[in-house]
Each structure stands twice: as structure tokens, then as C-alpha cells.
């Protein structure tokens, strides 16, 4: 087996290395998963949040419940023994009738805020839930964002005045600054586990060099910003915030940085369809390890950008893409493929929850799983397919709460999640998507 390690993320490593990396889960502590979740008297203090987005809705014709239940669309969770860690939350709506929900409910998935339209050169949504939690619960790494390769919008799906970023980003550090997801597991590995060559002195030097460069960039941007008109300045404020964020990361190295469990993953992750399942399995594994070792407490995952025609042929065989299957117009072949896509993604969620369970952090984490729509064919945004996952007997895991007949804003659930994570907000979301403050019934 491989012994000494090198940190270079560009080292060509074999598929065997990937499998070794994946296989490690067997060697990690399983104590948590051996405890029957339902016997625990109360919730562990919840410290972590993961938001998981899947695009284009589920097979829920007319926004009725359809097959969104443990026996059908969510059967992978049941098969993985995760039913008692999963709650179906029904009757939630999000978005605004006059904005295409693909865009609105992706960028606003975790904020329920209205996106700004009119100039596609700027992207403005609202600060998202994950980032509020990241503020409240600082860790060496602020948060992790993971997703699929960027979707450059096909003219068929494009709208004048809509920023393409809206289909591609769910995490917003501020109203006007998104956090772009990492699509390549090798890049995430380097971010989490690479420590640099050489010893401690060399590492200290490397950080000193980077700090000198970053400090310079901050001063440079400050001077440029002072010269520019007011409208052009915020973009440099974000740049300077990013410079400081990367610097803080340097300062934090050594405190909570995870050690490398194995070599870097390898594989072709450049194409959106290539290694679709493996991509996310690797990402899940790394997120779980990073949470276990305390380097991060907040993450978001996108199982695909909205509107995009991810087709996943390696698992589903050649055929139509996700967006086309969502707009199935009742075609049974397309509906079948959509259901298989939903199953595949529910299986991914089960894998993520399994990884969290394996490293013993599932009970202290809340995972929110959902989409931009319910019925993607009709673009319906009522009775969204939403799951809340985690552990603890204070929440109604293993049940379905709410009802399509009693609609309430998604923001109500998000407000409760913020409360549970110790980051309470007075209200959440905009206009018709705003919270009412009424409890959603997730608490026992």
C-alpha cells in the first residue's frame, strides 16, 4: 500500500487509488451507526448544516405528492436504513410567480429572496441560510460548496436580463456575492487535505509568501476602488473580502486542518456527465471527513445546475437529459427516466447521510434536501419536494409532516432550521416567499 505521501494534486494516480480512498469508510469508526438513532432521548446539540439541491423537480404531477414517499422516490434512503433520520416536509412553496422558478428557486433555494433581474451582468440574490450558519458557527474553513460543472445556458432556456449565475449557485455569502461550487473532487481534496511539501518551516514560509502577495492585492484593490465610480466599487469589496478570507485560511492552518487519509482521487470530472455518481460519492466522503475533523461545519451541494440537461448515461443509459425529462408532457418514457434520475439522486443523498453517520456527525447535523420545483413540467413551485435529515428524538424524523392542502412558505422551515442551529433570525425571505413565523410541525 501507499505509504509516504506527496501533496501534489496533479500527480497521476490510478483508479485503484480512488477505490482505496472510497474503501476507507470501512476502516473508520462505526460506533455512531451502531447506536439505534430512535433510542436517543434527545437531540445532540446541532452544530452543522448541509443544504442539498437537486434541479428540475421530482415526478409530482400537478404538485400533488406523487411518488414522493419512502416506498417509491425515497426508497434508497429506506434501503440504507435512513428512514428514521429523514423527515418529509410537505406543502412548502417558494419563489415568485413572475420570475422563472429555475432561476429564482435555485439562487433563492436557501434564502427565499427575490433575485435581481434586468442586467444579466450582475447577480444579486440574498444571503443564504448556510452562510448565516457559517457566521454563527465559525470554523477554520468558512464553508464548502460542491456542485456540477457550470451550465452555460442554452438559448432555448435563456431569458434576457437573467444572470446565468442564478442557475448555478445556491450559496450566497452576501446579497451580491455568491460562493461558487467546486466541481472537481481533486480540487476539493487539495483544498482540504493538501499540506504542502517539506516541513513546518517550509510551510510557514509558504504562508508568509502568500500573505505578502494577498496583503499587496488588498492594498492594490483599495487604491483602485477609490478611483472608481460608486457603482463599480462593490465588486472590489467582494474581491477584498475574498483576499481576507483566503488569508484567514492561512492563519487557520494547523488548527483543525484535516490530515490526508489517502492519496488524491483521480478520474475524469471535466464533463458534466462523466463519473456523475463517483464525483458526488467522493465529495460526500470528503465533506464528512472535514466535518468530523472540525475544519468545517457548513456545506452546500448541487446535484446539478437547474435547467441543464444532465443525462447521466453511465448509470441510466443513453437518453434524454434531466430538463427534457422534467418537461415530459406526459410521455411515459421521459417520466420513467425522470423517476430514475430522482431515485439516483435520492441514492446520492443516502450516500451522504451514510458517510455522515459513519463518521459520527449525522445527529449533530441538519441536512436540507430540496429542489426548485415540484412539478418541473408545469414549473409548479407549490408542495416542493423537501426532506429534512439528521438525528434526535426532538424532531419528527421518520415521518411526513405538513400537507399539500396546507401551503406554507419554505422560508418557515428555513427559519426553524436557523433556530435549531443557534442562528435565529427575526424573519426569512421576501414578499410572498417570506416566512410567516408559524411552526411547520417538524418538532415533536
Amino acid at each position, binding site marked *: 500500500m*501507499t*505509504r*509516504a*505521501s*506527496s501533496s*501534489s494534486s496533479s500527480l497521476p494516480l490510478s483508479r485503484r487509488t480512488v477505490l482505496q480512498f472510497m474503501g476507507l469508510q470501512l476502516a473508520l469508526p462505526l460506533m455512531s451507526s451502531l447506536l439505534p438513532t430512535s433510542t436517543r432521548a434527545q437531540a445532540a446539540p446541532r452544530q452543522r448544516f448541509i443544504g442539498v439541491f437537486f434541479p428540475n423537480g421530482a415526478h409530482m404531477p400537478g404538485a400533488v405528492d406523487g411518488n414522493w414517499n419512502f416506498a417509491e422516490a425515497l426508497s434508497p434512503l429506506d434501503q440504507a436504513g435512513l428512514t428514521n433520520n429523514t423527515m418529509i416536509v410537505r406543502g412548502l412553496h417558494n419563489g*415568485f*410567480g*413572475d420570475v*422563472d422558478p429555475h432561476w429564482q428557486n435555485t439562487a433563492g433555494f436557501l434564502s427565499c429572496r427575490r433575485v435581481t*433581474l434586468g442586467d*444579466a*451582468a*450582475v447577480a444579486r440574490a440574498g444571503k443564504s441560510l448556510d452562510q448565516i450558519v457559517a457566521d454563527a458557527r465559525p470554523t477554520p474553513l*468558512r464553508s464548502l460548496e460542491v456542485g456540477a460543472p*457550470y451550465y*452555460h*445556458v*442554452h*438559448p*432555448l432556456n*435563456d*431569458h*434576457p*436580463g437573467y*444572470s446565468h*449565475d442564478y442557475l448555478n449557485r445556491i450559496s450566497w455569502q452576501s446579497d*451580491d*456575492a*455568491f460562493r*461558487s461550487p*467546486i466541481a472537481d473532487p481533486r480540487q476539493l481534496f487539495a483544498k482540504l487535505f493538501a499540506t504542502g*511539501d*517539506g516541513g513546518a518551516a*517550509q510551510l*510557514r*514560509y509558504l504562508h*508568509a509568501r502568500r500573505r*505578502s*502577495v494577498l496583503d*499587496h*492585492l488588498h492594498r*492594490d*484593490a483599495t*487604491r*483602485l476602488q477609490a478611483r*472608481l*465610480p460608486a457603482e*463599480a466599487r462593490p*465588486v*472590489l469589496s467582494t*474581491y477584498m473580502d475574498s*483576499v481576507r*478570507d*483566503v488569508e484567514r485560511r492561512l492563519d487557520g492552518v494547523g488548527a483543525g486542518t484535516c490530515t490526508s487519509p489517502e492519496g488524491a482521487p483521480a478520474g475524469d470530472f471535466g464533463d458534466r456527465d462523466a463519473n456523475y455518481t463517483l464525483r458526488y460519492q467522493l465529495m460526500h466522503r470528503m465533506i464528512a471527513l472535514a466535518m468530523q475533523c472540525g475544519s468545517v461545519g457548513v456545506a452546500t451541494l448541487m446535484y446539478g445546475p437547474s435547467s441543464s*440537461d444532465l443525462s447521466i448515461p453511465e448509470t441510466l443509459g443513453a437518453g434524454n437529459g434531466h430538463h427534457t425529462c422534467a418537461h415530459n*408532457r406526459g410521455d411515459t418514457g421521459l417520466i420513467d427516466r425522470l423517476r430514475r434520475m430522482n431515485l439516483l439522486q435520492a441514492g446520492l443523498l443516502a450516500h451522504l447521510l451514510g458517510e455522515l453517520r459513519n463518521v459520527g456527525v449525522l445527529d449533530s447535523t441538519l441536512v436540507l434536501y430540496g429542489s426548485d420545483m415540484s412539478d418541473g*413540467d*408545469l*414549473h409548479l413551485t407549490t408542495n416542493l419536494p423537501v426532506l429534512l435529515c439528521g438525528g434526535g428524538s426532538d424532531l419528527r424524523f421518520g415521518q411526513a409532516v405538513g400537507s399539500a392542502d396546507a401551503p406554507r412558505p419554505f422560508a418557515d422551515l428555513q427559519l426553524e432550521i436557523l433556530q435549531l442551529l443557534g442562528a435565529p433570525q427575526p424573519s426569512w425571505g421576501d414578499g410572498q416567499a417570506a416566512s410567516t413565523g408559524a411552526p411547520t410541525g417538524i418538532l415533536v
Partner: protein
Amino acid sequence: MRALEHITALRTLALVLLVGASSLAGCTNELTPPPIGDGDDDDDDGDDGNPPPTPRGCQVEPQPVTILPRTSNEEFRQFVTDLLGRPVPVERFAQWTPLAQVNGFDTMTESRIDPGALEAQLATVEALSAELMATPAVMEGCPTPTDPPPACAEHGAYDAAAQFSGEQGRDCWSYLDANGGALAYAPADGRWFSPGDPGMFLWGNGLHPGLRVDVMLRWTAPRDGSAAPSGSFFDADAGGGDGVIVVVRGPAGDLFRAVIANGGAREQFQAALPVRRGDVVDFIVQRVANNSWDTTGHALSVAFTPTPPSGGRTWDNCGQLVVERVATRAFRRPLVALERDELRRVFDETAAAAAAAGIIGVFPEALGAALQATLLSPHVLYKPEFVPGGFDGAHDQHRLASRLALYFRGSLPDDELRALAEAGGLVGDDVIAAQAARLLAASGDRFVEHFGGQWLDFRVVGSTTAVSADPLRVAMRKEAHAVFAAVLAEDLSADRLIAPGFTFVDAPLATHYGLTLDPAAAVDAAGLTRVATADRGGLFTQGHFLTSTATGSDFKRVIGRGLYALGRTLCQPMPMLDPATREEINNSVGQIDPAAPLGERMQIHRSSSDRCLACHSQMDPLGLALERFDPAGLARDTYEDGSSVENSFLFNDVSVRNPAELQAWVKDAGQYRRCVAEKLLVWGLHRAVRPEERCVLDQLAGLDDPQAPAPPLRATGIDAFLTALRLTEAP
């Protein structure tokens, strides 16, 4: 209520900006745009500040760009390509966050740089700074390094088996006992041995320790740098014995140690370490208790990256020269004194930190940091030349030169342009136009790739349609590129993009199209041959357009091709569906027999309501005209069931029943010519065309003079650049 107003305003804005006044004559009232430039034309009587006139009298107040536009990842790649003097592969930027396309281009978004994006950028420029320092042209003027010559032959990769020889020190390999004593070579056996210890042997891919002393293969660092030894050891004689201990040892101690029992598994290792010239890495096989059955196989290699030679080099005699050279080019203007001081500060801070930490190669570390600070500067990652105040007034000539270079070569000003700006000679439309023409001619296919490739979606980077590795699909993208390049280079007018009279194919694509390829005809660098034909090569008859827009059902193919043609060639994107229209569409599910002929189904879509007709009257005729081509782009007369592919739908009263009719109308249509002008103008403006600016499109397209022939595409581009300058530069 406000929401409704918002969407109405949005739709109106989209139509006013992007639709020619006459183009929607057949539309319903709901989608008919208000008169173009309503209320503004009366104001242009010159009594409010004398705005500079645009060509031939269309007077518009300039409006600078209000956002700070990001340098696109491709522009950055071209910057570095120009600084290095050699192409930088696209893969180097694979982990950079892509930029959203605005108005069809990725060069005009403010796209914020988040921490993750900055980290990826930092990693890339750390590698690029080393490449810059290894480039002689970048380091020109620095004193020759006084470093000693290599201790042995310098290579990037060393392989013990491949470089095995009977000569000590050759290719930096030495053949020793574990005490450092030299072995002797037996040419007849092709292996090294110890005269005093008969059990000890060393050959190409194996080692055997002696009775008394262990055996050692040594690699010596030829120069200062970093070494990455890797490989494996294995038991090559599992017949017995007590196993061996394998050790890899660097200057600071063991890098790897393992016991291989008799018949045990192969042991792999990899490591990385800084090395000084003459440092050694030893690969040792040790006995356990005795050396019986100790034959040990191996696969050993060392990757070596030298630290750039820098003996005798300092900030004063080299660093400032290099930083000034790179930063002046990358910033697209001279540095100001404070910037020089600041970059020197990075150099000094890093040099001090490197010296204190005992880092090998203090000068390249310090210079590298200053170059990294240069490349990641907001002056490079953003384009302040588009924003008022972004460039100092003293640098107006450089601002102009940069805008020229960004427009026509998607990169930095070249040497001649920079020198002209430096000398203050970039004055007057004629001089600027001459430079534009020169840049187009001198910059290869950069304008074709970055402007044409994004407009018509044949560029692979950021493509909105699926990028296929299928050689036929690759050839189709190349065909689109080659036709655009030829129209530009041969000074043809934009109508030749629609009906060029020629195309470019390789042999498989010629077969696909049914074209005859003369085997004696010249093949260009892309592997394509020019073929004269009236049937192919136009925007609507190119395989790339026909295949990439034909996805999903036949309905979707018609809509897809129609929308693409409307948006890209007529600048007439359809408005987004409002809730009422979407509800109407939703209610129609199941109302149309999917087995009915395509033409019949499309007719039902058109006749459902005025709301449906408004868009279907525009999209469908264009898409249906192209039903003459199947999803693979092959010509056909009938569908599989034998029915005709032709239909009689009209596009705004014009008959476009087939590709020939469609091409014949579009190529001379004012809307098409205006659209080409608009794409070229937007490329230079870095923002959308304002309603009051639309009058310039007629002038750029040569439509203001009915007698004049259509201008060449190249001339329109140059004219559009000059116009974009006037429309964005404050007087």
C-alpha cells in the same frame, strides 16, 4: 402589482433593445414593441452639452459602462500566452470559476471573485510565475546567473532502469555499497558487484545486498531544485530467506522504510523534497539477518524540477526589470511609482521570509511572489479601462490601445501597439482603424475564436451546446470557425456568412455532407480542405448549427433551431414566458395528437391564441425551413413516413419554405445586417445597446444608404469598435 409592472417593463426592455422596429410587424399587440427611441430623438438637437457625433450624424450621448467588467478566463489565458510567448493550455484554467455570459459574451460581466475562485487563481499563478521566470524573453537584461554547472546530467525525469549504465555518475546515478563505497562493473554480466563482498549485486531493475554490507543505488541532484522520488520494491525471488528492509533516504533522513518479508507484497512510495546541488537520495536494500534469497526488484524514478538559476541576481540588477516588463504589459499601461514600490515590497518581504526559513532559491521565490501579485492584481483580473477613472488620465493612449487589443485579439496590446501608445501616436480614426486591421491580420484566429466563436457558439470554452469528442462533431465546429475566418480574411460582407459559396471539410465530413473532396486539394492547419458549394457552409447549413440545435423531440428541434436563428442571426430572442402564457401552455398538454404530422402540430400551436402565435409565428417558420436537414445535419426531402419536409409557413409575410429561401431572405435582410452590427458593437461596448443608440446600427450595417453595397464584415467590425469608443468614452 409591482411585480406585473416589473415583468412588463422587462419584456419591453428586451424587445426595445433587441428587436428591430419592423421585425415584429406580424405580431400581436401584446408583444409589439413601442416605437424605437420614442421621446429621445427629439432631444438630440445639440443644445445640451454637444455630445460628440457618431458617424454620419446619429447623435447620442455617451454612456460609460457602469459595472467593473471581469477579464474573462479566456482573456486571462491569452494575456499569459502573450507574456510567455507560447500558448497556455485551456486545461490550466479548468478549475477557474466560469464567467456568466452576458449579451452572448463572457467578457462583460462583473462576476465577483469568491474565496474559492481566488484560491484556484492563486494556485495557477504560482505555477505560471515559475514559467515566466523560465522564459528567456521575460528575463532578458538580467545578468547571467553565476550558479555552478550541473553536478551531473540534468533531466526532468530520472528512471533507474532506463538510465542504468556501467558508468558511475552517468545521468546522476551511482552504484554503491551502503557505506558509500563504489561497486565495480562487470560488462559481461551487465551488472555491478563488490569485489570484497561476493553476494552484492546491482543491475538495471534489481538489487541484492552483500554478505557483510548492504547495497545502495544513489541519485544525485544536478542542481538546486525539488525532487520527487517514487516507485516500488518487491521480492524478486520468493524461494526462501528472511526478507529485506528497503529504505529511501534523503539529506534529512529516511523518506520511506519498509520490511518486505519473503514473498511479501510490493511496497510503493512517493515523496517530495527540496534539494541543493549535490544532495543525494539513496535507495538501499538491507539484509535482515542474512542475504540469502534477497534478490529485490524495483521500479525507481525521480522527477526533478530545478530552481531557476539566479546566482548574482538581485532586485536592482534583475527583479525590477522583470516586474516592470511583466506588470506594464499585464496592466496594459505604465506603472506608477507607488505600484513599483509596492511590488518591490512583496519582493523584499518574501526574500526575507525565504532567507529566514532557509529556502533554496531566495531570489526566484521573491521574484515569483512579485509576479504572482502582478498577475492576481485587480488591474489584471478586471478591466478598469472600461470604467471612468479606471485608468489615470495620463494613460489615455494606453487605455485606447488596450481596448483595441481586447476587441481585435482578446488580449494585451502587442509590441507595436504598445510602442505607438507610448509615443502618443494613437490619434485619429484612420490610425486606430489601421491598427485594428493590423491586429486582425497579425493575431491569427483570436478574433474569430473569441468573438465569432461565442456569437455563433463554435468556441469550445463556454459553449452553450454540448461539446462532443466525436470527430465528426469536432470537424463541424472547425468548419464553422473556418468559414467565419475566411469571410473576415477575404474582406467579404456579412451576407457571405449566410451563403458563402464554399465550406471547409475533412474527408469524413465531406462524406457526411455528400461533397466530393479533391484528394490533391490543399489541407489547412486544422486538417480541413476548402470546397466550393452552394449547399453547405452557411450559418444555417453548417453541421455544427444543425446538430447542436437539434436535441430532443421534433417539436423541440424546430423550436430550438428557430430560437437559435432568431437570437443569433436576427437579434430577436423571444421574451420569457409570462405566467399567463405558461398556464396556457400547461392547459394545452394532451390537446395535440403527438402522432399528427409535425406541420399540423405546429399549426395548432400557432392558432391556439394570439399569445401563442406571437412567438410561434417567429420561431416556427425558421425552424421548419430547416427541416430539410435531419438531426444529424443530413439533407432530406421527406420524413421517414414519406411525407414532405417542406411547409408553407410565412415569416413576417416572407416565404421561407426551405433553407434556400431562408438564406436568400436572411442574407439581405436589414434585420440580419443590423444584428451583425449589433453583435460587433456590443463586443466593444461591454454593455447592451441602448434604445437611443439603435440608430447607429443602420449606419454600421450600411443600411442608411440604400444605394451602397453591404460593407465587408471586417470594415463593420472596425467601424463598430470606433463607434463603441464614442458611445462609452466620456467627452
